[in-house]
């Protein structure tokens, strides 16, 4: 039970870390978009239209992966809940 609890907590933390990455990603994407629209110099900004959309789809991919990680944490919490109910409910009803 402690293992399941630890795993669930670790996965929640990982999901939050991924969400942090996603937030940084879309903010950087917006910044590059505005920089490209403003006609700023630099080769990176000039080539932005070519790579920005794929990069932002990568950000969406990380966001969906974080959803998957949270769902694995939920799976473990459901197992813990089932175990606790199996233990406690008979004592409460009898």
């Amino acid at each position, binding site marked *: 039970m402690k293992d399941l609890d630890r795993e669930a907590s670790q996965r929640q933390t990982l999901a939050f870390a991924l969400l942090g990455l996603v937030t940084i990603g879309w903010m950087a994407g917006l910044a590059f978009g505005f920089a490209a629209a403003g006609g700023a110099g630099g080769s990176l900004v000039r080539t932005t239209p*070519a790579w920005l959309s794929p990069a932002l*789809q990568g950000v969406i991919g990380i966001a969906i992966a974080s959803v998957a990680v949270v769902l694995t944490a939920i799976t473990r919490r459901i197992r813990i809940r089932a175990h606790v109910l199996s233990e406690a409910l008979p004592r409460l009803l009898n």
Partner: protein
Amino acid sequence: MTTATLSRVGRDLALPREAEGFDMPAIARRMWRPLLAMGLMAVAAGVVTGIVQATLSTPLHVAQVAAWNPGLLFLGVGLLLGSVTFLLATILGELRDGGTSVQKALGEQALILKRPLTGKLFPPVMMMGLMTLLATLVVGFVEAARLDTNPSGAADIAAWVGPLRFAGVALLFTSVSLALATIVRSLRFQAGRIQQIADQRSK
């Protein structure tokens, strides 16, 4: 065959745990990891290809990569959404097994929710979404090949393949919604079953 063993729990139909035939959550438990890994790899490959595309100097090559790379990225996103759908099926399996263990601990017959229509629909809808995205990736390569010899044909393909990609993603989101709706039914069933057991014991 299972109709003889059906009973009613609240508004839902129930059947004994041992009467369930096809075990979808068992397949989902094995499949979500490969789908997640393939999705992440496809998205990473798409991002790298986008960076390579930005360094290309020949307009034809840029257009050719632009023709198939969105298909690769959409397929990656689709595989990730497929993994999410399988994880939702895994959650359904955990709810079913957890409910079974609680009922057995109470000394009652273990009843499970008879799979509702949403539960029957979400796996094929997910597969349809993934097949659509796979097809659009192939069509993207065909479009890229035609850019050199038949540009107007390539433009025709580009006109419909983009919306088809979004249709594939829409199908995958539909499957996620259907799986979530099944989870809602499963939670309602469990509450109803506990209520039923308590009512039987208080009589």
